[in-house]
């Protein structure tokens, strides 16, 4: 071990952790309500997940196993750098396997595999206020939450229908939590909204720049807003994953050339790898090494 001074465990100082921890407890007690907190400068720019990183830093302990995903992938820049950050400042075990993780920090996806009791899902949130694009004044949106006045959100969804014939919101699709607060589920595709409902895992949301923390406890109603004649629907894919042939999962479209070539692959890389290990193969999966030799 080096003799040099090092950071406090999990980077944040203890007073900051206490402040964030108090905010988290109140957030869990008032599901869907955005608790203001004194967000700190982190050694990464706003927009890189500083809210999620602060929440993770405040809850993580030496026994935890951390998984970080960026759009479902464990191996993209944001996920790799945040994972490396916590390995460095908290010396915790990390994993890419959803089932092995106790804390999963995510930027905009919920893993395909069902989360279990005891797991914590930490979302990085850019804009926590679901009403912000409808009403820019914080004083007004706060009053709207206080009075449970969510008519404007329904007008917005209705205008979608009037213009496009359907609700065209595909991500950051507003939800109502425990029958009270309308909440932004962060820019997850609406495909993931049903996974938030009655989840066994605790879900925490951190917005660093906007200085808000909110939460959804396990076994809590999370209902996507809709209309009787235009019920909420998730995206459906005609294709299956080109690598693991999975159906009913969220797929990314990858452009392959400039002649219209494309492939659809699982957004959740861990789920895809796990399926391939279990012998599933899609049409574009390269033959395994043994077969090629």
């Amino acid at each position, binding site marked *: 071990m080096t003799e040099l001074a090092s950071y*406090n*465990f999990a980077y944040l100082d*203890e*007073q900051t*952790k*206490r*402040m964030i*921890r*108090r*905010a*988290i*407890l*109140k*957030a*869990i*007690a*008032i*599901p869907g*309500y955005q*608790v*203001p907190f004194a967000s700190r400068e982190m050694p990464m720019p706003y927009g890189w997940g500083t809210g999620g990183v602060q929440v993770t830093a*405040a*809850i*993580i*302990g*030496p026994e935890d196993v951390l998984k970080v995903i960026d759009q479902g992938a464990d191996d993209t820049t944001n996920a790799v750098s945040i994972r490396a950050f916590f390995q460095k400042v908290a010396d915790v075990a990390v994993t890419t396997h959803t089932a092995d993780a106790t804390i999963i920090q995510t930027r905009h996806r919920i893993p395909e595999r069902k989360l279990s009791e*005891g797991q914590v899902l930490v979302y990085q949130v850019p804009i926590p206020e679901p009403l912000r694009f409808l009403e820019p004044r914080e004083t007004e949106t*706060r*009053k709207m*939450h*206080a*009075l449970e006045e969510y008519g404007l959100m329904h007008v917005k969804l209705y205008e979608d229908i009037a213009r496009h014939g359907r609700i065209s919101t595909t991500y950051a699709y507003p939800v109502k939590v*425990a029958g*009270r*607060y309308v909440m932004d589920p962060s820019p997850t595709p609406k495909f993931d909204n049903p996974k938030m409902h009655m989840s066994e895992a*605790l879900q925490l949301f951190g917005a660093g720049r906007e200085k808000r923390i909110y*939460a959804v*406890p*396990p*076994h*809590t*109603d999370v209902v996507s807003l809709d209309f009787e004649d235009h019920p909420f629907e998730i995206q459906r894919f005609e294709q299956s994953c080109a690598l693991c042939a999975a159906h009913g999962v969220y797929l990314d479209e990858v452009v392959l050339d400039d002649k219209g070539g494309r492939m659809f692959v699982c957004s959740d890389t861990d789920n895809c790898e796990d399926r391939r290990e279990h012998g599933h193969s899609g049409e574009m999966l390269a033959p395994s090494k043994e077969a090629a030799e």
Partner: protein
Amino acid sequence: MTITSDALSGGFSEPVFQSQSVFRMLMDGMARPGLIQRIVSDAGQPEPLGPAAGAIALTLCDHETPVFLSAGLAKSTVGAWIGFHTGATLTREKAEARFAFLEAGAAPTSFGLFALGSQEYPDRSTTLVLEVKALHEEAGAGQKLTLSGPGILQSRDIWVEGLPESFHRLWIDNRALFPRGIDVILTADTDLLCLPRTTRVGA
């Protein structure tokens, strides 16, 4: 009040990791109301503060959180101990308190004098740490409480010994204020369980 050696002794031996572990119990407890958890603490809090309540004070209180103590705790060295170890100031005004500690047997007559938060900022409310005689997961001694609400699949039964008689009535009043209201942590020696304001308590 003169600071006695009682007030200066104790504290977590590993503050960073012990406060993390107590916090995780509180977080899991708030997320799963009624879940009884047992802390391991060497905090050495002075009587009559219990070990769980002492650990909660060390984990969550600091100079930003005025603390209210019930009459029984206020006349002991507990106030000086919390002040020395956490930097929290004591307040006699319930409405200013972010945390309130009540010793076993203290019978609150109302929760309404504590900070309940506002409709705009319901998070600005007191968290009440209430000492009771014992907490049980299985039928036995004590009063049965059937809990339901967010964090609980269907319902959870717990048995509490030494719950103040007024608790049911006060909790119904508190529940009616939602989203305003106080949150409660019941402690019994080294055991604790959480009752966030969303939890409905049936007999």
